[in-house]
């Protein structure tokens, strides 16, 4: 039994933050959940989907975040409580719908949007602080500071959402979403749900039952009223509190992950009697009276929060309004340079900031030991991000590199989001030259493919994964067909949304709940646009390279599609043993004397191919090698042998 469905109120269970959010949604009485995979939020749907049928709710992986939120909003309009979850970038994707529904309001069913923010951009292109979008679009937002709150806040948000008639948001950061902690479970409601799109349509007062933005000014006035109510509610929220001395020398204002770091810093520096912590859980709207109360009493305010100086700036705004006779505190945080403007927080960052401001020197460990630690870092090899051994993208990128070189016109690859993007560096032979967001690769290729009138003649290959194809590439594909742009669209189809944990997508033939369903054929879709499509196995390097070359040089131009289809190695490996035993023939490999400059190691770059310095020979690391046999194609001496296992 999955831990999130345990029906034992009061029992304490170890849960991941995302699981706690999922549990909170169940306790909140959801009937509908929609999501698109994205780190750090994927596990919310990963834990709801497998039990959905059993517990009588509907859960889906939508084709992208926009549809996920829209679908959840649809459920809300049908009177069913719904949750949509996504990573921070997904919130950017839904921004259009989000901004509208924030003002239009929701149906009778509460609607909660969960954002998984990624401080330090550990799995994203950029850090993003979604508290700012809550302020921007006037959306009530809560941020949990521990795993218990992740559950309790999610549950509460459904009540708040229905009370206000507004979509509400929950912001998690990586360490909350992926951290684990004990959670005291609440009750799982046993409810009968009857979905109905409200037909009570009073033409004298249409606003509540018509989900349109018009007239915008009146809608906004409604929203302001609701927000006024929200501001009152948050002043008495149990998710905001102050702990510490009544008159503190310094008050730390914090939310989310920053709270525990703040507590640690205060404890380590033994400043419990001088430093107070104002923990804000309702990050939008903030509890202004509570914050003002503590601003009045403090000489110094330090903001410890993930990604941006959100609370820092809100506190400064409030301080600007304090009566002139009141003491104005000095503000510290990202703006003052005491917290790095970039990067994930950790206890050290909090300790350093606090000790610096308070004029303390804090030496965490013996100086000599510290020096040894620093010196020992040189032993750690630099490990860049890389493709897995056996990854079909390695083969695809190798074929693309060769085809572009043979073509000789300095062609290049535009990239997108997915596992293959980790091949932007050496492991993918530096082929991928651009990478922005979902669908960005084919998008920019569209533009480049129309520059012929300005003398542009470099072949453009737009790379895209299978999940990304359905998520975001289709408009770019249609645009290319319609506006007749010239590029080769290379779909790297490894039959998986691999990067985020192998969730199904429209090409999988299976939905989130494990039910078999329609397979959406990407090649049929492309052909329906009148485009030429070729399907290759990237492991057949000769054919893949030749096909790419042929398509690149196709005189009819326009958008041409090459689908490199081969299952992700990790999926294959779960099912079967490695197809080959691969080893180096010690007689054929002549080491440095080959004159190839360790081609297998340096150019091909699979991490299983290493070098035996003593024997001066290439070597295959049996532990890492996936037995895919691809490298057997590349040795000029034919020294890499593959035998059917």
């Amino acid at each position: 039994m999955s831990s999130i469905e345990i029906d034992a109120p009061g029992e304490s269970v170890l849960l991941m933050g995302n699981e706690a959010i999922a549990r909170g949604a169940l306790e909140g009485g959801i009937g509908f959940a929609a999501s698109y995979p994205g780190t750090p939020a994927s596990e919310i749907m990963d834990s709801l989907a497998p039990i959905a049928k059993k517990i009588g709710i509907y859960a889906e992986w939508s084709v992208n975040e926009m549809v996920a939120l829209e679908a959840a909003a649809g459920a809300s309009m049908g009177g069913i409580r719904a949750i949509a979850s996504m990573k921070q970038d997904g919130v950017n994707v839904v921004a259009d719908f989000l901004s509208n529904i924030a003002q239009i309001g929701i149906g009778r069913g509460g609607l909660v949007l969960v954002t998984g923010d990624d401080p330090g951009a550990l799995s994203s292109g950029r850090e993003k602080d979604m508290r700012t979008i809550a302020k921007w679009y006037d959306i009530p937002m809560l941020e949990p500071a521990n795993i218990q709150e992740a559950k309790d806040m999610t549950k509460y948000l459904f009540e708040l959402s229905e009370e206000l008639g507004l979509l509400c948001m929950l912001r998690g950061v990586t360490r909350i979403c992926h951290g684990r902690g004990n959670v005291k479970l609440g009750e799982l409601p046993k409810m009968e749900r009857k979905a109905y799109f409200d037909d009570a349509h009073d033409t004298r007062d249409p606003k509540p039952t018509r989900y349109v933005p018009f007239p915008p000014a009146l809608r906004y006035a409604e929203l302001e009223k609701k927000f006024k109510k929200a501001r009152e509610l948050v002043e008495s929220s149990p998710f905001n509190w102050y702990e510490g001395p009544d008159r503190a020398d310094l008050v730390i204002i914090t939310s989310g992950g920053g709270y525990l770091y703040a507590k640690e810093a205060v404890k380590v520096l033994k400043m419990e009697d001088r430093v107070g912590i104002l923990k804000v859980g309702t990050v939008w709207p903030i509890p202004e009276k509570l914050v003002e109360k503590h601003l009045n009493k403090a000489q110094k305010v330090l903001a410890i929060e993930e990604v941006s100086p959100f609370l820092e700036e809100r506190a400064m705004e409030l301080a600007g309004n304090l009566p002139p006779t009141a003491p104005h505190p000095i503000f510290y945080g990202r703006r003052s340079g005491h917290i790095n403007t970039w990067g994930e927080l950790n206890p050290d960052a909090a300790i350093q900031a606090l000790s610096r401001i308070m004029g303390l020197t804090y030496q965490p460990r013996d100086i000599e030991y510290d020096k040894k630690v620093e010196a020992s870092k040189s032993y750690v090899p630099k490990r860049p991000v890389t493709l897995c051994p056996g990854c079909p993208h390695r083969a695809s990128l190798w074929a693309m590199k060769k085809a572009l070189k043979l073509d000789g016109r300095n062609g290049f690859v535009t990239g997108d989001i997915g596992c293959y993007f980790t091949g932007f560096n050496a492991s993918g032979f530096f082929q991928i030259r651009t990478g922005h967001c979902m669908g960005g690769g084919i998008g920019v290729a569209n533009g480049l493919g129309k520059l012929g009138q300005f003398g542009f003649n470099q072949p453009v290959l737009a790379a895209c994964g299978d999940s990304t194809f359905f998520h975001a590439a289709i408009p770019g594909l249609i645009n290319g067909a319609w506006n007749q742009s010239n590029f080769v669209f290379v779909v790297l189809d490894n039959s998986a949304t691999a990067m985020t944990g192998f969730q199904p997508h429209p090409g999988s033939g299976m939905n989130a709940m494990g039910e078999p369903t329609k397979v959406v054929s990407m090649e049929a879709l492309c052909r329906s646009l009148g485009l030429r499509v070729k399907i290759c196995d990237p492991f057949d390097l000769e054919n893949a390279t030749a096909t790419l070359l042929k398509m690149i040089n196709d005189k009819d131009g326009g958008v041409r599609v090459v689908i490199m289809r081969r299952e992700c190695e990790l999926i294959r490996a779960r099912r079967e043993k490695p197809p080959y035993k691969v080893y180096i023939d010690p007689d054929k490999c002549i080491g440095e004397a080959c004159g190839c400059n360790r081609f297998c190691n340096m150019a091909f770059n699979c991490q299983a191919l290493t070098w035996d310095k003593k024997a001066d020979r290439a070597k295959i690391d049996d532990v890492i090698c996936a037995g895919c046999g691809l490298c057997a194609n590349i040795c000029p001496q034919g020294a890499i042998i593959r035998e059917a296992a």
Partner: protein
Amino acid sequence: MNTKVKASNKELFDEVINAGLCTLCGACSGGCPYLVPYKGRIVLLDNCILPEGQCYQYCPRTYTDMDAISRQVFGLPYSGHELGITRGVLMARSTDARVKERAQYGGTVTTLLSLALAEGLIDSAILSRMSDNKTPEAYQARNTEEVLQCAGSNYMACPVLKVLNYIPKHSEDRLAIVTTPCQGLALAKMKNNPPQNRVDMSNVKLVIGLFCTWALSPDEFREFLKENLDLPQVIKFDIPPPPANRFDAYTRSGEVLFPLDQIREFIMPACSHCLDMTSEFSDISVGSVEGLEGWNTVIVRTKVGAELMEIAKAKEKLETDTLLPQNLAHLKEAALLKKKRALGQIIERSGDKRNLLYLGLSESIVNKLLG
């Protein structure tokens, strides 16, 4: 000894490939995973950062000490003679009807290779063969049938040495190889400074060089042929001797004749910098006989070449005869003219009589050739 210059693919591209001097001989490719001939170009597939490379060393268009090479092959300094170093010049043709049917002229090359295989002097021959799309491809033939498939002139450059470079170090196969003059020079450079990481050069037992005035660029010329001929119908090509001034294509549905001037625009630019018309660094060189169909001019240069010719005559595989004096005179004239023209081209390009780009020749020989 040839000076070992510390240079690699960067210099190769700067000085030769991007400088219009590449003859597509294939000496730089094959054993090397970075360089590959493709559609008439040499392509660098990956960044090779080796400071010193065999690609540069063996290229016939990087600096070559002609004396050293000549001593390596013949034990004699480079003479500057029109036909190079010769033991004898004669005419020959095959006695085998099957060979004569497929041969371009006398079928001498095919016969000699066939004989060498039959006599167990060699295990395979590396030569070029017309592929289905009518461009030449390098091929390793192991028997008479396969050699016969390669008969006929291609007129387009073919990187035959690539196949030689694929042969691993430990292979005991004894080889013959059919070369154009530039390939013969590269081969001689390889023998002078043998590679330690692949083919054992002492296994190259027989080098048959072809007469060559110029070669056509394989990719561009093929496009021309495709536009003007039904390629699957083509049986063979021929350039008849002057004053014909034609390029002939023999197809199953008849002959298509092109003015030679139309074909000249596809000549590789590198060819105008080449001094060698008769493949001077071979064991035996073979060409046509002007005005006499079905015969080859044969120049015997080494003991190996002479011995093989004796066997061929003794076993009546080849019919031989004296080359007519006017033919010999004409051959020498043509060969000397190629040398003069090429030297002129090189000096015009370098701007200095003492800078012959890739040629290491003494001033006296240069003066003698320029006359």
